[in-house]
């Protein structure tokens, strides 16, 4: 559901969110209206500017008169809609979803390059996840450091596919895609080749910037990685002073 161009003839609907009377354009989604009105809704796969994926289920909300829950990112507003974003049930589900993400792969914040810059870490705190009640899977995933500029650590990946979408929809390269199912599901570059050997990657780094965790990072950002190269100095100095 890519955001349509604002048109003058789009209908305006009225709805309530958490008891607050609001009006919105009929082509907006619930999460867009919430963001416009500073109503906090947790989300991970949703990112303004990218197509809707609806995978993380963190933005689930309750609609009056409906038994099932709706993802706020993939549900359009409608006239008279009565939406609740914070209930005990939603909080319980969101907390469990975040716990499942932590248990699935290895998210050790204290040694992660994205510590304090991570959306998963922030969400855990916001959702009150002070421990994970389910057992950790303790699986070991690979890293791909073959790219000159960037690095991929599958251990930190939550499969939000922001990288896949930004590469396809914005950069137009479609280097990224998803392969495998269940716990084998991974993001891949080209046909599951090392990133550094990708012929389609433009090296733009958009995937790194939209990644919510430490799965995609710039090379040289982890502790002890800062390698300095002063070789240029004697060479340049010699040439400059050459007769």
């Amino acid at each position: 559901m890519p955001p349509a161009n604002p048109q003058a003839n789009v209908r305006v609907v009225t709805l309530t969110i958490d008891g607050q009377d609001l009006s919105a354009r009929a082509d907006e989604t619930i999460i867009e209206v919430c963001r416009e009105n500073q109503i906090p809704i947790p989300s991970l796969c949703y990112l303004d500017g990218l197509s809707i994926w609806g995978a993380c289920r963190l933005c689930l909300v309750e609609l009056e008169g409906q038994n099932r829950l709706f993802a706020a990112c993939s549900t359009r507003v409608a006239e008279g809609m009565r939406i609740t974003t914070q209930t005990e049930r939603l909080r319980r589900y969101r907390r469990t979803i975040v716990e499942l993400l932590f248990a699935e792969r290895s998210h050790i914040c204290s040694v992660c390059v994205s510590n304090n810059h991570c959306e998963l870490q922030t969400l855990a705190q916001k959702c009150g996840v002070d421990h994970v009640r389910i057992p950790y899977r303790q699986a070991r995933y690979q890293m791909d450091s073959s790219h000159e500029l960037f690095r991929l650590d599958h251990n930190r990946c939550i499969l939000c596919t922001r990288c896949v979408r930004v590469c396809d929809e914005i950069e137009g390269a479609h280097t990224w895609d998803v392969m495998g199912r269940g716990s084998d599901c991974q993001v891949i570059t080209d046909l599951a080749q090392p990133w550094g050997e990708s012929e389609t990657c433009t090296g733009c780094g958009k995937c790194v910037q939209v990644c919510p965790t430490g799965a995609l990072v710039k090379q040289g950002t982890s502790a002890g990685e800062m390698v300095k190269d002063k070789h240029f100095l004697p060479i340049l100095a010699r040439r400059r002073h050459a007769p």
Partner: protein
Amino acid sequence: MNDTHLSHDPLTPLPNPPPPGGREPDTAGATRIRVATAWLDGCSGCHMSFLDMDERLVDLAQQLDIVYSPLVDAKVLPDQVDVGILEGAISSEDDLRHAQEFRKHCKLLISLGDCAVNGNVPAMRNPFKLEAVLDHAFRETATTQPQIPTVGVPPLFRQVRPVHACVAVDVFVPGCPPPADAIFYVLTELIEGRTPDPSKVTRFGA
């Protein structure tokens, strides 16, 4: 190394711990809260963060007694403790026995720091075989007398677990280490008989 050491299957979740509660009314008034702390598989950084409360420790000392801790001389855990604080993950027989003793004797048990709360750095060995980890640490990288220590050291478990995977925990204070302010907040809330919400002041990796 055999697996009979594992008294609890690491893949079986324990029931949710009981909700945290403040100290009981009979300990109010002149009686000071009895606090015990222990250092399991961690780096002692959480205890250092405890000391980082600085001059606030002086005030706290009026309201609580540290009855057992690496920070004091007592060698035996008393029978009745109000608040137990555990730093570090459960990596060995020794850690497990310590945690079980704490659970038995403490009215309220706190997991302090990421190692206790989620395994953190000690648990990074879990995807590897224990033999391979010991080999790497004591043989492959040893420069003199490569050997795996067996005398006077507790047997290691194959899997490192957070404290709540072995015994019920009442309050979780994540952080590596949790900031001194967070520890102070949790202790003062407990002293006041309230239930602390550590997510307000700390988080994983904080």
